[in-house]
């Protein structure tokens, strides 16, 4: 009888310690999870910023300005264009 009681007591204490440890582990993991979530959010912010930056950089207005001013490009005039037909012969301009 006494021996059974002692055994049960030991079991109870062990379980109690187990609960404490797992609770502690759960808290720790939760903190990690929160940290990763925070990181994910920061990356989300970054992603949004990069998307914005990219779309600002490829704005037609900007591309055109750079092409005209920095690269000295212009639309071809009619005498600079040659139309090639599918059969390979050059069309009359």
């Amino acid at each position, binding site marked *: 009888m006494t021996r059974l009681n002692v055994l049960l007591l030991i079991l109870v204490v062990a379980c109690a310690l187990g609960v404490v440890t797992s609770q502690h582990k*759960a*808290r720790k993991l*939760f*903190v990690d999870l*929160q940290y990763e979530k925070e990181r994910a*959010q920061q990356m*989300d*912010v970054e992603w*949004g*910023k990069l*998307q*914005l930056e990219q*779309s*600002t950089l*490829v*704005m*037609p*207005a900007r591309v055109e300005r750079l092409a005209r001013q920095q690269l000295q490009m212009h639309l071809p005039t*009619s005498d600079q*264009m040659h*139309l090639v037909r599918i059969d390979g012969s050059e*069309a*009359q*301009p």
Partner: protein
Amino acid sequence: MNYATLPQTSSQLALPAWRSRALFVLLLLVMLALFVRAVYLQGIHNDFLQQKGDARYVRVIEVPAHRGMITDRNGEPLAISTPVESVWASPADVEIDLRQLMNLARVLGMSPEALRDKLQTRRDFVYLKRQLPPEQARKVAALGIPGVSLQREYRRYYPAGEVTSHLLGFTDVDDNGREGIELALQAKLGGKPGSQRVIKDRRGHVVEDVASLRAPKEGGDVALSIDSKLQFLAFREIKQAVIEHKAKSGSIVVLDAKNGEVLALANWPTYNPNNRAGASLGAIRNRAVTDLFEPGSTMKAFAAAAALEEGKYKPDTRIDTGDGKLTINGRTIHDTHPDGVMTVSQVIQKSSNVGAAKMALSLTPQTFWGHLSGSGFGMHTGSGFPGEATGILRNFQTWRPIEQATMSYGNGISVSLLQLARAYTVFANDGVLKPISMLRQVGHPAGEPVYSLRTAREVRDMLELVVKPGGTAPLAQIRGYRVAGKTGTAHKLQNGRYVDEYVASFVGMAPASDPRLIVAVMVDEPSGAEYYGGLVAAPVFNNVMSASLRALDVPYDAPLNNVLQSAPLVEEET
């Protein structure tokens, strides 16, 4: 010594039995009391206590959901929500010294006095500053002032700025759509924030997730039918035209002729949607959709189509326009350039009011009304744009003959530019009217057949003559492509009278052999030297159309030497 006292001493040592019993009972009672208390607390009073406990560390926090992205047809982002932080305080909890106050005010970019005023309010919750960029918000957090906290919110950015402002509209500070597409598609774009029950420690950190009460619903992305390249071109050209001709405003619409998709839609004046401060109501209005104007001669194509469809006329039927005057019920219709007898094709090419009026008068009011209404006048276009104007096409039962005559050249009828552009889909699609769509379409939507294939092709051929020498818009010719279109130069109606202010317009399609695009241009009150549609609006059409056809790799349908500028353009009014 009196030994008789000894037994007494020993009796004092031997404690009476009742005392231990009394103590035992006492302890038992205490135990019982504790037990009863425990039962009371754990059982009977549990709910209340649990509630009180939860109130101290369980919090329901909001999980923000972001608004969906708006992209153009190729996936280029046109409106993006990025997270920002709002700084708020519960004034009662704020402990702040003067130095910290100055620091906080500096980081927030506001005056220390204004900040102190905000902190001295009696409310429990006050926003100090909304929508700070994340870096700035981090500085606020680094100050570590008790009672001052951050809240995540989303702010809308429009990378294309003023180019797409009328189209997209804008959102309010809570990220709800207020204008344009943002409002029209609010249900799809808007996210629904979720909520979550968590346990927080004393310092406010979340230490445990208890339950998710409501999952956040992220907003959906929307792909518009807009092509950013074409949108930019259209915007640039209409802006330049309005400035060059000192006009009040201008609008332009580019449609896909096959399926009614809006590829570009722009107005000038406009505003910067990323910073609306100081934008006037006039600049915010999406004129191409919400404003009505009398279209003038661009309506003549419909008068001709109706007359051809009813078999009253053929393209080569000769109409005597006489000396360019036609009097109906005491009111006279004038032609700017009287040209005697001309064919129906020439009436369109030279934009004769008398010719158009005669064609309209050959029909009953009901028939003419039926054709105009069938072409979408006086009706919604199906774009779903908020505040879209339906235009004014009065009931045929109230028409007088003079009104029926003037309507043939676009007086006495009001349209929006989008509506006018849509109406021209009947000529581009062999007689079928297509619904307008702001969203990218899969396949071709079925339209409403309005005219026979034959009528539509005949009118399209007439519209090609308009841009040829001898027509009203040789400036609309494009190298390598056949163009069909119609000019309009309408007197404006002010207080019921026509005044010498004009609306110059041009609606056209190309390539005319199998139209891919429809471009409609409208310039309101050009007050420079020129005001004819053929001089003000046609060049805008030309620039936008030629660049768009090139951008879309549309094959040529004409020899490259098709542009002839020899003859001066025929001037027209209305």
